[in-house]
């Protein structure tokens, strides 16, 4: 359950389903919005991760 990618996908799934149910009533419009949100979040996350890849990781954050 601690896979970053899996957690991101689960998060995107929950949020996409939520906003689809909140904002759309017709089945077709729901499917379109769901795909836009879900693929946007997962794809956007992957793109940001890819853009950050060249940057070296910093020191681990201290635990307060």
């Amino acid at each position, binding site marked *: *359950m*601690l896979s*970053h990618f899996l*957690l991101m996908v*689960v*998060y995107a799934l*929950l*949020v996409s*389903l*939520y906003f689809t*149910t*909140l*904002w*759309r*009533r*017709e089945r077709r*419009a729901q499917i379109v919005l769901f795909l836009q949100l879900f693929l946007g979040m997962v794809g956007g996350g992957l793109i940001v991760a890819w853009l950050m890849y060249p940057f070296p990781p910093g020191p681990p954050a201290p*635990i*307060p």
Partner: protein
Amino acid sequence: MADTASPEAPPAPPPSQDGPAAQPLPASQLVMAVALAWLVPGLGHVYLKRAVRGLIFLLLVIIAVGIGCSLQGNLYRPMQGQWLSYLATLGEIGMGVPYFVLRYGLRYEGQQEAAGFEYGTAFLLTAGLMNLLLVLDAWDIASGQKE
């Protein structure tokens, strides 16, 4: 054949995604819907006769809370001198009864050293904020601004 429609007649507005607005409810029912929507995720929608939608919302918020807790995310509480903790607490209190059950009933706090702490916190915060939006949605439905 003569066209009876006036050339200057404005085009019909596109159909709203929310459908036709319903009749506004009395103030007492509006307050009840908003209160129920905050207390139990989705209950405001069930009260407003949107049972299926309400149950979907309940399921989504509870799943988000469950994942957040299983990852040992932070259940925020106000901390002196850290104003962001007040904001985060407000956001998580948005989930209603589940927040108080976790905090006072189950004595849940989260575990900062846990590997999933940050993700869990994001899930818990999201659950609270999602329910706050549901409160506003219930308000819109009860006041006749939304179907």
